């Protein structure tokens, strides 16, 4: 067979395909309910490739100082041991510089007249620096985008380097994720995890799930075998070092007991824990490498969360609600949430939601519903400022091309309006990461910044956007201190 015949063969195939392309309607031909046949159109051939690297993403990558480990920092002196104490350590990093940040920082947005929203929190942070304040904390709520301590970890690490503090903050007793960088965990006994978000277990008739929206049901102790939670900490990490453990629990009867076994020695047993909600508070001096928490709750109970924290400084809690959209606070037990929040005493609350409603929910409804949640938070946490972080870019695939969900921007606006209408602040993650069609550039960056689901960031990607948020927060902090 001569090469010219082969050439003609390919030309005929291309012609045939061109005819199909010309005859095929733009929206394709429906075959069955889900199945739709489509083909290239002439305009597809000249369409801009959305997989091309977005220039703003290239700039973000060039300007970032992060790696895939939120705690990677050669400047950090891991040998220091005083940062779990009440003393505020000296900063080991250069603070964010207001002048340089102004040029590159993607700033927080405030409602008109509410530019000083964060002043009380910044005053507290300043107090941590000069020693007039002992501790404060940030509650970082979010959906799966912050799971596994993502986003929070870098913000926590950077802030703790500057303002002091260590430890993981609040963690669930039974996690959905096993990949925490600070510790490994297992448990003995028939522990079960229940969540108010996602799929709710209909056998749970109450709505007391704690501020994390999830609790672990504590098995009933059998004779001398108390159910236990076992943690092995990586003390070379800042999050793995702490000297205070607080267990937020609910016992069904009084006279419950909790024993703490640190590095194979029972160091303390808390007895006569009352029924109902309480906080078991335990302090330990020295590194905790191995911790077993033995629980004797005679009729069982719930653990709403465990906080591994330093005595002083700043705590930042990662509260991930997989599949959540931030609309559950008003539906959960108000008194119980308030009681837990009173113990936690947050200086700042961050809410990072929106991604899970992008494919499904009307933005007008979401704005009204989210505003109700913010109002509720305002009531149970009076005076605590809130920063709402909007959704990241997310892509759908249409005719082989990845493009931003058409509902992203309306949902982003819904969250922004709800936040600003409530007198709170907003940080636009979608625009910060490059806006329309930035997600394909994150996915195809080298190394990748997002997963091929075109929704979730990789460890490096999430640290990159977390650093942007940290810079935005520190810019406001520096501006506040420049003003005073």
């Amino acid at each position, binding site marked *: 067979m001569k090469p010219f015949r082969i*050439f003609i063969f390919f030309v005929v195939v291309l012609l045939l395909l061109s005819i199909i392309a010309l005859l095929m309607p733009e929206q394709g031909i429906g075959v069955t309910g889900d199945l739709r046949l489509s083909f290239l159109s002439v305009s597809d051939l000249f369409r801009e490739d959305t997989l091309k690297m977005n220039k703003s993403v290239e700039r973000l990558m060039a300007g970032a100082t992060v790696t895939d480990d939120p705690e990677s920092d050669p400047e950090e002196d891991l040998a220091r041991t005083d940062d779990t104490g009440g003393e505020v350590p000296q900063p080991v990093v250069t603070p964010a510089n207001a002048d340089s940040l102004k040029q590159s920082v993607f700033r927080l947005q405030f409602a008109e007249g509410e530019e000083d929203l964060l002043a009380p929190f910044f005053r507290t942070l300043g107090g941590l620096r000069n020693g007039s304040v002992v501790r404060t904390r940030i509650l970082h709520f979010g959906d799966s985008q912050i799971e596994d301590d993502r986003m929070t970890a870098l913000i926590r690490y950077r802030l703790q380097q500057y303002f002091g503090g260590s430890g993981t903050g609040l963690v669930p007793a039974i996690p959905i994720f096993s990949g925490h960088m600070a510790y490994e965990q297992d448990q003995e006994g028939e522990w079960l995890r229940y969540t108010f978000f996602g*799929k709710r277990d209909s056998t749970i008739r109450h709505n007391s799930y704690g501020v994390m929206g999830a609790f672990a049901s504590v098995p009933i102790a059998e004779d001398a075998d108390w159910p236990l939670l076992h943690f092995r900490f990586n003390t070379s990490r800042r999050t793995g070092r702490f000297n205070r453990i607080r267990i937020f629990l609910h016992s069904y009867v009084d006279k419950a007991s909790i024993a703490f076994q640190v590095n194979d020695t029972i160091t303390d047993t808390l007895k006569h824990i009352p029924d109902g909600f309480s906080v078991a508070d335990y302090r330990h001096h020295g590194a905790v490498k191995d911790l077993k928490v033995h629980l004797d709750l005679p009729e069982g109970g719930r653990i709403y969360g465990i906080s591994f924290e330093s005595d002083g400084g700043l705590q930042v809690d990662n509260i991930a609600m*997989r599949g959540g959209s931030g609309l559950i606070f008003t539906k959960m037990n108000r008194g119980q949430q308030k009681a837990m929040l009173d113990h936690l005493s947050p200086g700042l609350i961050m809410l990072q939601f929106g991604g899970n409603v992008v494919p499904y929910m009307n933005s007008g409804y979401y704005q009204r519903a989210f505003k109700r949640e913010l109002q509720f938070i305002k009531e149970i946490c009076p005076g605590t400022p809130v920063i709402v972080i909007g959704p990241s870019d997310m892509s759908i*695939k249409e005719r082989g091309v990845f493009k931003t969900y058409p509902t992203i921007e309306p949902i982003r606006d819904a969250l922004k309006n709800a936040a600003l209408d409530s007198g709170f602040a907003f940080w636009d993650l979608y625009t910060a990461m490059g806006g329309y069609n930035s997600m394909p550039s994150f996915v195809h960056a080298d190394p990748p910044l997002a997963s091929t689901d075109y929704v979730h960031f990789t460890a490096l990607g999430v640290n990159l956007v977390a650093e942007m948020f940290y810079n935005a927060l520190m810019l406001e902090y520096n501006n506040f201190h420049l003003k005073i």
Partner: protein
Amino acid sequence: MLDIFLFDPENPLIFTRLFFWLFYVVVLLVYSIIYKERAVRNAFLFAASLFFYWKTSGLFFLILVFSTASDFYLGNLIHYSHRKGWKKFGVIMSVFINLFMLSYFKYTYFFVDTVNALFNLDIEVVNHLALWSNRLTDTHFDVSMILLPVGISFYTFQTISYTVDVYRRKVDPVKHILDFGFYVSFFPQLVAGPIVRASEFIPQLYKRYSLSYQEFGFALFLILKGLFKKMVIGDYLALNFIDRVFSNPTGFSGFENLMALFGYSLQVYVDFSGYTDIAIGVALLLGFRIPKNFNSPYKATSVGNFWKRWHISLSSWLRDYLYIPLGGNRKGRIMTDVNLMITMLLGGLWHGASWQFLVWGGLNGVGLVVYKLWKRISPYEKSKHRAVRFWKIFNTFLFITFTRIWFRSESMEKANQFIYQVTREFNGSIIPQVLWSYRLVFLVMALGYFTHWVPERWKLALLDWFIRIPIWAKVLITALVIFAIYQSWSAELQPFIYFQF
């Protein structure tokens, strides 16, 4: 218009893009005019191949040109010099230059990271090639990073095989440098193999073009099969399931991790074999025969048998140019095992410069050694019983799939996370939900394995039928297959689904 001739790293010339096929049609048009003039034909295909490599790798094509020139002249030195010392010098220089280039571009980071980790140092990689270029020619290359030229692992091994074969007098040196350049850079197999031996390819340089109608059908069948395997099965599975799991193993249950591993075992096969199927088909339509590179590897009955079926051109290269020179099986049982381990460890490193590939190679080496011991004592080794054969295939497949954990994981940490999830967080209760929610993914996976494991005679019957049908039917089927591939390529993304809260 000018963009067509410029290097664009985001639009390389690869088989799965329309641009490649337009390029190929233009090549065919020119080829149909000049194919009878042997020297012109080879020179044209050399030029087309350099253009292909320029579009894929930019200025790295100069390295290809350097490799071509150095090995051409060293080949001549080896063949034409009368002194044994010069011959030896020539072959040593060729191996050294090729391995140095490969090491520089591929292994610098691995060596530096390893040294830093072992001795607690903080050595930084500097691209001296870029540095010299910047100083000498006022270029502005980034000196802080070394990029890996596409296909360097393949063409360096190919040119080593040439000079060694000339040294061993298995092949005469190529007479003209353009012919040699064509052999080194022939675009169908330049970036992903197969590694074509000089002794198999060079005689074809001097032959007239010939292609029967049956061969045309065979080549077309290979191209369509390769595109289908790569785009409908491999790309779909990777995008919608496998990549998500391996990028974040702890975000998924052990069951999902395990399914992603089985999916990957299929994906890596359909990707790689699909690509080489296309390469063989594209080359054959130009009248050049490239050897088969895969032979239903998951039908292998042992690890040894697997390596005779998987990436055949590499495993035979390693056998002939590494294992046998090391002593092969000629120096006793222990040394045979040592040689096997060295070969497989280096073979692992050839696939990628990281500890994961070393572990993967090492595991395959251990698999070979253990199987050698086992077959001496196994009562079933010579059994032809169907159940025995099934059991052997099953175990080999499981073992090879197990080794893929390290082949696919981006780091040792991710590999450990994968193992942790499978062994500690399996979560069998969600299996029905996972299977249902990802039903299309699992259907594609089942289709891939089914088409792999069907009897060879079924595949041959299909091939035979395709070869015999008239050309107009081939046109229609080709268009239909491309239309089907487009449906898969343009399919909506599998949404992210949570099974645990």
